[in-house]
């Protein structure tokens, strides 16, 4: 009898994927399990729970505690059930007098070197050691407690989120194995032998100073109080939990929010989550304190001009004020003079409502989203080639890949939980090719297969992708069967003629890419010859003036080699924020209604017009950069921004600030006074993901529920605010719950037709397309055919960026992210993640540093054609000479003061990754930074003045 899988139960050892079943008898119960299943797991599946301490079902069996010993008919001794595979016809007994005595003796030894402070121990109520002592009936410890022991072992409190109390350690190695097997960091080891053996972080330097990345896997694995969250030490054990979805990166991990009333005690990754299978990173696991931070905006505020203090008002007054201004501006400057921006950090339902508000109540298509500045080229490029603006795989698909090509992405920092899965596959033997100007950590991960780095120059992606394709075509490595069957003939013939041209040969582009031709040829062969080859890419592909071309070039590579339509292959954009995919799906772009239906398509538009009861403009609206230009020109006068910080995240800050200052009315809805809000006239308090219901869609098109665990701090969930604004603009919106918004989305969007909250409850999550054809969603896309019938090879001409290094600006700056901070940092800067990264620094190669007399920690002035800022130096060999690197997590760094207006030719996605700069030693902040500081002080004073005087 096979039991239903319960994600809340620990089955002791991992599941076997074998399709052959074996039948055995455990305590008289007959059970059939896949071959390779351990006796322990087989028993657990039959609800027979064998005592255990060192086993956990996310770790390989280890067989060290011996508590799980069983008796097997015809076998000598008492084998450990965790390391013994179930066999056909086996007869197993899990309980008898002999086993009971053995287990009691084992526990007696453990407890003889363990503190007996159970009543005051933080694990009290959730301690496997305590449970096992109870289970085996331990009643005495004959050895006494006076012998040599570890009871005085010191605590390591260096990590801000958890404590390592060595006195409670039973050396079961679960933490060490979690660090290696689940996370793949190998930061923990068992130091010493026998009685002296102990868990050590790094070279026994403490957790904070070691290479530990604070993913929390060790804390979760610990069966005692040795590794415990500080929040549990402070607050005690949680009393209920709610499954929800992380609001950080595009992996979209499922978590159990473990609560005490409406207080969040801890976030524990949920084993039932199909994106993360119970793993997490430091952000999702620990960095949630921002939700209750003192800086949260707790009441709506208004002001007539940005030089005035804020005034706290009721929701009604704030919404009324905003609506009145929007109406007046439209009356004076026309219907197209206002617009809005949706957020990739908000839910699908919220972004849907904002674009609906703009199209129906504003009466124009001036809606855009922050995906404009990250993955808009993905939407364009994949739609042109594969017919759908989305990645083709599940994350799990990587476990079947034989070759993984990573282009312009840094998964271990930016998508850490996927990064861990990828590392696991590399340890199993998949080969790795990284095309990136920087040496990323993935290249250093322990692996069985080959790892190749193609350290190309920033801005040469198209040349590189074309060179790879050229080798595949000219060396006869194409999958001709796939191409003939699945791809459009004419487009393929044109592309083939184009790519065969010797100007695309690796030798011909060596000067441009800076990568040796033979290395490129070898990489192309490895990718093309692998039975399953998969491409993963990130913003290092999209954020270029040829971002869309590279995306199409990547699709060409996958098509030419037949790496589409099954597990282990595909084209996988790693999305930056939690709901980038969703915000694009929900019709946030100015030219597309939900489900990527063009506004000029009369049939699609007609459906929305009928449902919404309005006429929808058939012309596209303005993109974000066009909005800025139009604002400066004076014909765009008002903007509603939900959950985005364009003043910090968008390029050429001074241009953005000028645009924001030009607006007559800026309405910002956010959880903090972010950089954009400093230019706002209306500030509407936002709600965090913990305070609302909805759904997020991750990078694998997986729609996951977001569930409310605490009330919104200012009384309204974000979607309710948009509803109120629509009603105040005389466009009626009436929803009682986000599930009703999803019902409307499903009714109007063919790829979402089968999605409902009820089905999400049943299935856990759904990957779109989900409709009559795919009632429970589509894990892998394009299996039989493409949405456009046959795939379309695209011509990918390499047009170099106009942003080039010269004598005045001899270095190329490229920007990126790090593990502990998230995007503009508004959330993570308000957590203890600051201990890892409290300022943005400029990474510079020793050669470039020496030429300029620069030492580590020197203040450096960085100048580009757009602006000037000052950062501290970090000398690093991760960069190649001539290339410098920084992050943009801290607003006062002004990283985007330097980035330019250059953008992708097809989508206007900014070229963050290439800026020509000069670097020199300086002694004081830049003028922009001084102004930033003054304005920051002034705007915070305005905020404090908004609060009614204390009585």
């Amino acid at each position, binding site marked *: 009898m096979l039991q239903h899988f319960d994600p809340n139960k620990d089955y002791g050892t991992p599941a076997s994927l074998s399709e052959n079943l074996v039948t055995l008898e455990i305590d008289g119960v007959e059970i059939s399990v896949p071959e390779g299943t351990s006796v322990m797991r087989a028993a657990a599946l039959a609800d027979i729970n064998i005592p255990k301490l060192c086993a956990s079902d996310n770790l390989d069996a280890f067989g060290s505690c011996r508590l799980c010993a069983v008796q097997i008919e015809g076998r000598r001794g008492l084998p450990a059930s965790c390391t013994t595979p179930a066999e056909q016809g086996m007869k197993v007994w899990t309980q008898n007098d002999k086993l009971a005595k053995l287990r009691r003796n084992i526990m007696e030894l453990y407890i003889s070197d363990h503190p007996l402070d159970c009543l005051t121990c933080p694990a009290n109520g959730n301690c496997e050691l305590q449970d096992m002592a109870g289970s085996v009936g331990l009643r005495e410890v004959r050895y006494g407690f006076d012998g040599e022991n570890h009871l005085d072992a010191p605590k390591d409190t260096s990590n801000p989120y958890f404590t390592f109390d060595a006195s409670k350690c039973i050396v079961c190695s679960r933490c060490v194995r979690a660090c290696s097997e689940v996370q793949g960091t190998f930061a923990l080891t068992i130091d010493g032998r026998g009685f002296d053996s102990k868990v050590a972080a790094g070279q026994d330097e403490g957790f904070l100073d070691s290479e530990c990345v604070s993913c929390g896997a060790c804390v979760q694995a610990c069966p005692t109080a040795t590794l415990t969250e500080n929040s549990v030490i402070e607050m005690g054990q949680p009393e209920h939990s709610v499954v929800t979805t992380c609001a950080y990166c595009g992996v979209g991990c499922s978590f159990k929010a473990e609560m005490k009333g409406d207080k969040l005690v801890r976030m524990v990754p949920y084993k039932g989550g199909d994106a993360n299978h119970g793993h997490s990173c430091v952000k999702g696991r620990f960095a949630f304190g921002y939700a209750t931070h003192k800086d949260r905006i707790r009441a709506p505020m208004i002001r007539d001009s940005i030089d005035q203090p804020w005034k706290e008002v009721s929701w009604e007054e704030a919404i009324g004020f905003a609506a009145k201004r929007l109406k007046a501006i439209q009356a004076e400057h026309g219907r197209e003079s206002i617009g809005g921006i949706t957020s990739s950090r908000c839910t699908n339902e919220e972004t849907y409502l904002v674009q609906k508000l703009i199209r129906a109540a504003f009466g124009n298509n001036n809606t855009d989203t922050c995906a404009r500045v990250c993955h808009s080229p993905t939407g364009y490029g994949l739609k042109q080639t594969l017919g759908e603006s989305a990645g083709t795989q599940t994350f799990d698909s990587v476990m079947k890949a034989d070759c993984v090509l990573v282009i312009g992405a840094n998964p271990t920092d930016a998508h850490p939980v996927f990064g861990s899965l990828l590392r696991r596959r590399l340890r199993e033997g998949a080969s790795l090719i990284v095309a990136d100007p920087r040496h990323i950590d993935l290249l250093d991960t322990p692996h069985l297969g080959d790892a190749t780095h193609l350290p190309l120059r920033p801005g040469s992606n198209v040349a590189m992708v074309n060179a790879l394709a050229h080798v595949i075509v000219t060396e006869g490595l194409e999958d001709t069967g796939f191409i003939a069957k699945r791809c459009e003939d004419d487009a393929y013939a044109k592309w083939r003629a184009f790519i065969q041209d010797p100007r695309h040969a690796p030798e011909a582009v060596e000067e441009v890419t800076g990568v040796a031709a033979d290395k490129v040829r070898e990489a192309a062969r490895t990718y093309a010859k692998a039975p399953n080859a998969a491409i993963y890419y990130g913003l290092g592909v999209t954020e270029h*003036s040829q971002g869309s071309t590279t995306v199409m070039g990547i699709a060409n590579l996958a098509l030419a080699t037949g790496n589409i339509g099954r597990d282990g292959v595909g084209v996988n954009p790693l999305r930056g924020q939690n709901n980038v995919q969703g915000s694009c799906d929900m019709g946030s772009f100015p030219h597309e209604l939900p489900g990527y239906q063009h506004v000029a398509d009369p049939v699609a538009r007609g459906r929305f017009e009928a449902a919404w009861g309005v006429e929808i403009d058939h012309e*596209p609206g*303005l993109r974000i950069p*066009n909005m800025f230009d139009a604002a*400066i020109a004076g014909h765009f006068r008002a903007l509603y921004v939900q959950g985005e910080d364009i003043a910090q995240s968008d390029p050429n800050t001074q241009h953005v600030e000028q645009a924001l200052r030009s607006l007559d009315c800026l309405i910002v809805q956010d959880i903090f006074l972010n950089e954009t809000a400093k230019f706002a006239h209306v500030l509407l308090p936002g709600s965090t993901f913990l305070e609302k219901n909805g759904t997020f869609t991750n990078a694998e098109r997986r729609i996951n529920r977001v569930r409310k665990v605490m009330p919104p701090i200012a009384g309204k969930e974000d979607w309710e605010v948009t509803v109120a604004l629509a009603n105040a603009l005389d466009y009626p919106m009436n929803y009682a719950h986000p599930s009703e918004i999803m019902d409307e989305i499903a009714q109007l969007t063919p790829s979402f037709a089968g999605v409902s909250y009820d089905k999400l409850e049943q299935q856990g999550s759904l990957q779109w397309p989900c409709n009559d054809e795919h009632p429970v969603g589509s894990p892998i896309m394009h299996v039989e055919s493409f949405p456009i019938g046959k795939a379309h090879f695209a011509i990918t*001409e390499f*047009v170099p960026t106009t942003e080039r290094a010269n004598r005045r600006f001899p270095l190329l700056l490229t920007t990126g992210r790090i593990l502990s901070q998230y995007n503009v940092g508004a959330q993570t800067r308000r957590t203890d993640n600051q201990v890892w990264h409290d300022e943005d620094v400029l990474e510079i190669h020793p050669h470039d540093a020496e030429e300029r007399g620069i030492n580590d920690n020197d203040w450096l002035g960085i100048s580009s054609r757009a602006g000037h800022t000052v950062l501290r130096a970090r000398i690093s060999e991760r960069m190649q000479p001539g290339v410098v690197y920084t992050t943009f997590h801290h607003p006062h760094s002004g990283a985007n003061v330097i980035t330019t207006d250059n953008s992708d030719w*097809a989508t206007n996605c900014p070229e963050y990754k290439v800026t020509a700069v000069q670097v020199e030693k300086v002694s004081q902040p830049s003028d922009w930074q001084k102004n930033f500081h003054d304005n920051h002080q002034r705007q915070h004073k305005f905020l404090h003045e908004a609060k009614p005087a204390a009585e």
Partner: protein
Amino acid sequence: MSHSEQDRLIQMINQIALNNISAGDESAVAEVVAGHVKKFWSRRMKSQLFDYLGQGGEELHPAARLAGERLQGDAR
């Protein structure tokens, strides 16, 4: 129309032309450019392009200019 706004539109349409230069002859490139502008540019941006054509459109790439003229023809 402000200068920077016009400059940006010229830069954008020329960039579209250059990135599709391998689509074929000038007419074929112009077809791609026109299709792109039609699909992605706002009403006002299109009319600003037409205004610039009216002023001579000197800085436009030949294929971009042809695309603009065709779009203008369609709009009439």
